[in-house]
């Protein structure tokens, strides 16, 4: 789960990382009020969960409360990469001397978190990593010990920070790690961490990704989820324990298992079609789950055919077939379907579905060809 900048920075602040004075506003009038409190010279920042807000004109410096109101009005009516701006963050403007990058990421290969920093922040850190890897400092963190003070201080030295800032930087590193570990983040990033003209360190921007698997122990963070930022189908899928990603093709897919669901999408493409979605219905195939999955798939108006690929294994295919038939009764619109069932009692499963005038297939290739033909026909 992605957090907004204002949410991430609040968590950073709670862990001792200095952030600019500011508050979030949902209306231009509220933005004006905050600008007045902060003395007029403020930065108005669109809160959307995509990168590249600055380039899209979503971050603006203003000099007075009335200008703040005007700019907030503009930002609150704009879309950035298809997402409507519903809130703006109004932050006291900082005078920037230097921009630094500081982040904690999970290194899959090393199986531990890594503190990453660069004296050249403010820009795309992946780009810096590609073009000048020597400018990036990385320190592996022991998952039992956590980030230690000497490691954070060592990074301050290695990115070439002035000695008088080492102490403050060290504390910011430790604070960021605190935010990362206490929130079960998979990424906690300050970019830029600036040195102001007054010589203070300040986290101007913040980004956090939270581990969805850890939500059960963070009810407070679960409340921060911004439903406006995801498709209603994705919200609906999560409710039923389904894993759904919308794509832009015409062949809807319902599959049990994530790897098989991806393989099913791929084979649809190989057969000359395009998958409309990724959908993993998980273990078992209860009629309730199948029904929910069908509703979600068919909510997408591009879908012209649906491919059901269920590798039952231990699950009984006749039960799955009955589940599918029950689910079909609540289907919002008629769309041709191809079903492939493999597992115990698969012949019986196919017979049940054929009697309901559903196309069936023995192999994945055959199923994909039929579904693509139906979608194009």
């Amino acid at each position, binding site marked *: 789960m992605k957090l907004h900048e204002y949410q991430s920075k609040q968590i950073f602040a709670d862990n001792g990382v200095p952030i600019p004075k500011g508050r979030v506003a949902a209306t231009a009038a509220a933005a004006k009020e905050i600008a007045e409190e902060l003395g007029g010279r403020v930065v108005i920042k669109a809160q959307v969960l995509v990168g590249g807000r600055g380039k899209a004109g979503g971050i603006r410096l203003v000099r007075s409360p009335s200008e703040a109101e005007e700019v907030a009005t503009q930002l609150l009516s704009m879309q950035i990469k298809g997402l409507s701006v519903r809130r703006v963050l109004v932050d006291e403007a900082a005078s920037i001397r230097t921009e630094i990058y500081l982040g904690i990421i999970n290194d899959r290969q090393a199986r531990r978190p890594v503190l990453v920093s660069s004296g050249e922040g403010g820009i795309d850190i992946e780009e810096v990593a590609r073009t000048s890897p020597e400018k990036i400092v990385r320190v592996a963190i022991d*998952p039992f010990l956590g980030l230690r003070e000497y490691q954070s201080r060592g990074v301050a030295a290695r990115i070439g920070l002035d000695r008088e800032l080492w102490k403050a930087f060290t504390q910011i590193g430790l604070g960021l790690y605190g935010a990362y570990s206490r929130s*079960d983040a998979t990424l906690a990033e300050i970019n830029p961490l600036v040195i102001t003209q007054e010589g203070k360190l300040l986290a101007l921007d913040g980004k956090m990704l939270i581990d969805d698997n*850890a939500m*059960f122990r963070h009810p407070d963070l679960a409340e921060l989820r911004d439903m406006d930022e995801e498709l209603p189908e994705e919200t609906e899928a999560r409710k039923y324990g389904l894993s759904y990603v919308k794509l832009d093709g015409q062949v809807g897919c319902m599959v049990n298992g994530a790897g098989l669901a991806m393989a099913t999408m791929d084979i649809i*493409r190989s057969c000359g079609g395009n998958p409309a979605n990724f959908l993993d219905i998980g273990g078992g195939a209860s009629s309730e789950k199948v029904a929910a999955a069908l509703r979600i798939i068919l909510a997408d108006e591009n879908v012209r055919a649906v491919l059901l690929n269920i590798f039952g294994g231990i699950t009984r295919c006749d039960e799955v077939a009955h589940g599918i038939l029950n689910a079909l009764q609540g289907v919002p619109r008629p769309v041709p379907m191809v079903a492939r069932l493999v597992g115990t009692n698969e012949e019986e499963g196919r017979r049940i579905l054929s009697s309901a005038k559903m196309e069936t297939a023995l192999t994945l290739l055959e199923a994909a060809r039929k579904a693509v033909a139906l979608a194009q026909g």
Partner: protein
Amino acid sequence: MSILVNKNTKVVVQGITGREGLFHTAQMLEYGTRVVAGVRPGKGGEWVIEGKVPVFDTVSGALEATGANCAVIFVPARSAADAILEAGEAGIPLIVCISEGIPVQDMMRARLFLDQRGLKLVGPNCPGLLTPGETKVGIIPGHIARPGNVGIVSRSGTLTYEVIHALSEQGMGQSTCVGMGGDPVHGIGFLEALELFEGDPQTDKVVLIGEIGGNDEEKAAEFIADHMTKPVVAFIAGRTAPAGKRMGHAGAIIEGSSGSAADKTRALESVGVRIAAYPEEIPALLA
């Protein structure tokens, strides 16, 4: 021969009294697996599955009484990392974690804990291990597999079944099937499995089933180039997956410029691995 598990493997099931635990314990027993004990805190002293399997309160208690040398975990995600640590503390040399949804920071600690003790982990979020005709530790449906000389290692569940099924249909049996799981932080990976298959006299060929996310497949390609003499055929799922979206598995996500199916395919092809366009094509490429 086989790798990791065989007919002598003595299994303790953690979370044996849960719905999944009970169901799959019965399936394992039916397949011939030597399930010697179960663990469920608070139910020590009971017997389950028609009195066939004794239940213990702790893994160490089960180990002491039965000499189990492999643990399989069916504990809910929020306690599963703890179950791994308990099995590790008891010194179980091979721990197979089926549970899905363990927080990644928990897994980083659990994996390190086992590494420091020299213990092996398979999973989590995996279907487990199957040595056809001998034993299964996990949930892979036994009836689709046949004993034979093809080793399988996979990041997936049902996709693995699909491949096993396709191989068996063509009369190609399997030595051992390793479901390594779909999480970003996991136990045994492609490298360890390939190394074991290379050294296993029963295995003549290997099927590697990868997917988008991370760079395990790229590392496997390096290993294959340097160490493998046996032929390897691969399938990589997710050629049509968009970047930045998690495709079901916690580890299946293209992040920034890394983890795409195209990169993995290129890396494997460059070291002579044949790539199947779809799972059912694998038997033909192995022949």
